[in-house]
């Protein structure tokens, strides 16, 4: 019944939100529904992706909410870039749900799934929306779900990690809201496309201030140094499926917001160079910090920040190749790091240390193999997806003549290789305690999907080339964006 019930980008946000609010009622009917409903929701959203994304590659879908045309009304912009991220988020949501089916045992499960769906809905809303205040609201939905999920487990230090996150997250939201207020006072509009056209009404000094506010606000959520103090605690405190989502979804949504807002509203060379430098600093410091970590989740968290740094460094080049490389790095990281978090949790539990990996190669051969695969992909060994993403980053840097950046990236790759190979070595070369328990099928299935993604991109990097090129063009072509949104 396509006429009666047309698919629209709104469903990305509406379906998970509706399911989240229905879940407490459904839970009263039957406990088993709690586990099924999120999976069905994510499946439905994936179906929406399958139908709409090919259309978005042809021409962006611009959805007006409640029939109010922009700039007065709120619009959703479902272009190649937003579509790519929305589809990625839904897929990760589904995989994490599949994994949680058997691996997530801590009650209350209904609340866990409510927050999970709100997190995915909020992050998807952030990439879809064309209204800057709407962006703020979705960012807060994401953030509040993330705070609660960080402190979800009622164990020793979880509440503290959640409180740290909430403290710095609230600062971020206050900064973003202040920036929005200042922009509104000068331009009288909140629509991103309309703002982009009216930015010349804002004095240059004010523009710099607002850019700073947005950089700090979104940078906190995107784990850019020096604003990422919350991340290692939050990643190690949250249940592992949630850590995978933090790396794959919340950070990516904030990065997308930062990239979109910067390119649309602050396209001066200085802002881009600043972002690039921040990315490199983040990369170096995080990788060095990761080298010292004993706790595997903290190690992965620092590695995660490093990957974000790599993506931002490429993004700041502000060329088509640079944005292409940044997108590739983000997608690669979302898949690989998600898989690593889930694998480590399945292998060694919630407080996994390096020692916990000892001798796992013999006891849990499949999981060990998956961890090795993920580690190699993050380092960038061929023929895995990470190789191509890192190669595209380096190519983009080479084309703009930034050979110092290439040197830095290669140097950090050695550091990265050192700590990931050390962890992999523990799997196969050390003797460990006898293992207990078998890994359930649903967890293996979820991990296998991600592993298949890594191998697929690794062997057929051409298959996502079109998607990434379209996404990069979509992000850089601001004239097309503003015209598309404001055409009527």
């Amino acid at each position, binding site marked *: 019944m396509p006429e009666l019930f047309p698919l629209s980008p709104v469903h990305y946000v509406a379906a998970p939100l509706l399911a989240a609010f229905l879940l407490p009622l459904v839970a009263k009917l039957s406990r088993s529904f709690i586990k099924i409903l999120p999976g069905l929701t994510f499946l439905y959203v994936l179906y929406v992706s399958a139908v709409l994304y090919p259309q978005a590659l042809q021409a962006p879908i611009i959805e007006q909410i409640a029939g109010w045309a922009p700039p007065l009304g709120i619009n959703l912009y479902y272009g190649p870039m937003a579509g790519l991220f929305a589809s990625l988020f839904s897929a990760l949501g589904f995989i994490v749900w599949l994994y949680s089916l058997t691996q997530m045992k801590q009650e209350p499960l209904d609340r866990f799934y409510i927050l999970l769906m709100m997190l995915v809905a909020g992050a998807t809303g952030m990439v879809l929306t064309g209204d800057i*205040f709407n962006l703020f*609201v979705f960012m*807060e939905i994401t*953030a*509040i779900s993330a*705070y*609660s999920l960080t*402190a979800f487990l*009622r164990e*020793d*230090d979880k*509440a*503290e*990690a*959640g*409180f*740290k996150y*909430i*403290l710095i*997250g*609230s*600062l971020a*939201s*206050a900064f973003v*809201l*202040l920036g*929005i*207020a200042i922009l*509104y*006072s000068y331009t009288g509009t*909140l629509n991103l496309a309309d703002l982009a056209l009216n930015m010349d009404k804002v004095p240059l000094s004010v523009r710099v201030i607002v850019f700073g506010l947005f950089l700090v606000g979104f940078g906190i959520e995107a784990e850019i140094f020096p604003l990422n*103090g919350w991340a290692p605690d939050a990643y190690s405190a949250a249940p592992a499926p949630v850590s995978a989502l933090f790396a794959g979804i919340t950070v990516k949504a904030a990065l997308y917001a930062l990239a979109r807002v910067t390119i649309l509203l602050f396209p001066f060379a200085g802002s881009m160079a600043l972002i690039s430098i921040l990315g490199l600093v983040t990369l170096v410091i995080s990788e060095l910090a990761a080298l010292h970590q004993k706790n595997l989740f903290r190690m992965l968290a620092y590695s995660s920040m490093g990957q974000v740094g790599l993506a931002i460094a490429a993004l700041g080049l502000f060329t088509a190749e640079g944005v292409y490389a940044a997108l590739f790095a983000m997608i690669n990281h979302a898949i690989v790091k998600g898989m690593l978090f889930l694998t480590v949790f399945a292998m060694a539990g919630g407080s996994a240390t390096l020692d916990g990996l000892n001798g796992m190669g013999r006891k849990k051969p499949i999981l060990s193999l998956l961890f090795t695969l993920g580690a190699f992909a993050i380092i960038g060994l061929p023929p895995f997806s990470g190789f191509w993403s890192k190669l595209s980053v380096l190519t983009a840097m080479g084309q703009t003549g930034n050979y110092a950046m290439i040197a830095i990236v290669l140097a950090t790759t050695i550091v990265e290789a050192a700590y990931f190979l050390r962890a992999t070595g523990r799997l196969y070369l050390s003797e460990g305690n006898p293992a207990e328990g078998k890994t359930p099928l649903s967890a293996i299935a979820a991990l296998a999907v991600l592993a298949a993604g890594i191998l697929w991109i690794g062997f057929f990097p051409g298959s996502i080339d079109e998607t990434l090129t379209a996404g990069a063009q979509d992000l850089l072509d601001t004239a097309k964006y503003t015209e598309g949104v404001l055409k009527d």
Partner: protein
Amino acid sequence: MIYYIASIAVMLIGLYAVLVKKNLIKIVIGLSLMDAGTHLLLVAIGFIKGGTAPIFSEPGLTADAMVDPVPQALVLTAIVIGLAVTAVALALVIRIYAQHKTLDIRKISSLKW
């Protein structure tokens, strides 16, 4: 102008509390103050002295005699968000207190950065 200065002042007081105070509850109050300052600023942006509600209720009433309704709508939304954040923060404070029996962040080692 006075409104802008006042709202920035409220924000700075909140920021001061967040950065300097050692009591968890006071930190949460600081967060709320920062939010409140931003909200005041937003409302001040749309305010016109002697302006009325943006409804065409009387003949001869024009748009420039009305208070801008958009910031007010934004503030309503932002207040709700601020409430949710404060509620989550206080819930976490309760859990931290139950575990450590203190609200002093100097005595809770896991809260150090």
